[in-house]
């Protein structure tokens, strides 16, 4: 069958080059995550892999687009493969409950990373590692309400991550809490840019045009630094002055990336918050290590969250590098 030589060759290539047989005694960890192309997600995965290796764990990474069904399948596969633990970056707060129930039944511990699952199911996971998304929203909300002090009116637009996920919903909730005290602040738009730089830039352009006639936007809350980057580019193109003063637009974000740190140092972005993927990855591995050593584990490992502005930006330069 000469026609099948080609695929046979391809398979042989795939098999020989990419098989990574597990070394004995190493703990096998399945890191099931979302789109690895996303800078935040990618950095978490890379840190878990590197740190895991240092700590005697063999970490296999299972990515995919934000695909809950695929994740559910991957959890089932990990159960079947008898992994020692699962580190899960959930794509959906609800859709993984059945799979997590099966993992629990199989006795495989699950560490949730960055995003939670629907409340009332605390028994399904070992520990949550990450920031409190609501608090991240509050930190940004506080920056805005500080800036809005003394203004008669203050228009804010939110350029959000994928709205059907829990993370953006929580951040928006926290943000609303923080600005509730000041009725002058008005959220004029919530747009879904799905964690994407280019889409953020495009949406920001539309928003700037829409509100140009009504005195412009006072602030834009882009949910990630790489999204804020798009907003700043768009503002520059539209010749919108950036800053906190009247007639200027203030850009804030709620996780920190290198481009955000640079923009804050340059004065183009006002601030961001400490959601740091490398730290999350390190903490995840630390939690797993404690679990394998039989040590007690914090159920909710909420990492420290502070605001990053021009005053303290340099102290975060090392951690915000993704």
């Amino acid at each position: 069958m000469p026609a099948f030589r080609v695929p046979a060759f391809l398979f042989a290539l795939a098999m020989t080059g990419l098989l990574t047989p597990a070394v004995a005694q190493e703990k096998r960890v399945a890191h099931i995550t979302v789109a690895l192309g996303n800078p935040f997600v990618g950095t978490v995965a890379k840190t878990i892999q590197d740190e895991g290796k240092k700590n005697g764990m063999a970490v296999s990474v299972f990515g995919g687009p934000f695909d809950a069904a695929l994740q559910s399948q991957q959890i089932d596969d990990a159960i079947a493969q008898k992994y020692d633990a699962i580190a899960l970056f959930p794509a959906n707060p609800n859709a993984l409950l059945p799979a997590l129930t099966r993992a629990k039944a199989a006795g495989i511990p699950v560490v949730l990373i960055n995003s939670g699952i629907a409340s009332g199911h605390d028994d399904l996971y070992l520990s949550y590692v990450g920031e409190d998304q609501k608090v991240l929203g509050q930190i940004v909300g506080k920056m805005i309400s500080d800036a809005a002090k003394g203004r008669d009116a203050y228009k804010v637009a939110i350029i959000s991550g994928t709205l059907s996920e829990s993370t953006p919903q929580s951040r928006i909730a926290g943000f609303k809490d923080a600005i509730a005290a000041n009725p002058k602040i008005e959220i004029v738009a919530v747009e879904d840019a799905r964690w994407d730089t280019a889409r953020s830039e495009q949406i920001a352009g539309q928003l700037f045009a829409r509100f140009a006639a009504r005195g412009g936007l006072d602030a834009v809350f882009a949910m990630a630094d790489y999204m804020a980057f798009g907003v700043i580019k768009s503002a520059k193109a539209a010749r919108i002055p950036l800053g906190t003063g009247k007639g200027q637009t203030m850009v804030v974000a709620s996780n920190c990336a290198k481009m955000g740190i640079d923009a804050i140092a340059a004065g183009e972005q006002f601030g961001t918050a400490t959601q740091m993927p490398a730290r999350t990855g390190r903490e995840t591995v630390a939690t797993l290590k404690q679990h394998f050593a039989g040590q007690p584990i914090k159920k909710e490992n909420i990492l420290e969250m502070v605001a990053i502005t021009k005053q303290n930006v340099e102290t975060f330069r090392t951690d915000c590098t993704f």
Partner: protein
Amino acid sequence: MTSISRLIAEPIIRACVLFLFVALVFAVSAVFAGVVVDATTMFSVLQNFAMIGLVALGLGLTVLIGEFDLSVAGMFILGGCVAVIVGSNGPVFGLAVAVLIGIAGGIIQALLMIRLGLNSVAITLGGLLTFTGIAHVLTESKSVLFNDLSVALAMNVPVLGVFSLRSLITIACFLAGGVLITYTRIGRDIVATGSNRHAARVAGVSTSHMLVGVFAVSGALAALSGALLSFGLSAASPTGLSNVMIPAIAAVILGGGSLSGGVGHPIGIAAGVLVLAIVRSGLTVLGVSPSVHEIVTGALLLVVAILDGPALGERLYQFKSMVTLRVGSI
């Protein structure tokens, strides 16, 4: 050699051979890698099969009749959302409503196509966006939780070791589709419509009825598939719990479907879906990096495209003579 090339030219047989070949490669690789292949692996393959299967079947039937139903991806999402929202009154009721909406959606699209004389790609692209939009409205753009977790667990309990309720339903649909196409007049009329629509009409086939029927089935299968997945995960999301479109198209092509119509068979499509399912599960079991999944799938599609191209035998012959020529001149 000639008999083998003729077999390869037969799309269904080619799909099945491809399936056996891929299965064999993974079985051998698993032995060498020291991975145990057991019932759980089979179960995982069949779960993947259930995830893409029904959408691929519906899409494949529209391809067979010479059209292309892009809206299956939208109906998949809408079916899931409707089933979960309505299913609070009982999951079977939710499932039924979802399937009815799928049928209605398919019929409306087919009628538009026939009445306006438009191409299915244009109409179903509209359908895709409309159905997704309705799903967003119904759920207010949020992921929805189906409260009865026991349904989800029941859906995925292994039956006879390797099957689950979802995969059994999927297999049943494929068998029904196979019987429909091979053993009924309707099946022949569908193939004739896809093969040469004008000829079928002249011969007395009611091609419009066939189109409406096929799109109704396609919509129903997509909605059913979405509903089953949503119950299996006990959640629905307007952005989709899974990206099924690309794998479904890939499965149809791997299964021997031809975009020019008239070629394809549910059994071939099933083999195509199984190939993808094995690639997915198999590579996961072997611990291969996920990005390789796409590369392997892409390579398989390329191979099938080459095998499917016109005058394969002639090209193989030319290739051979070219090789001999080169060798001879050295």
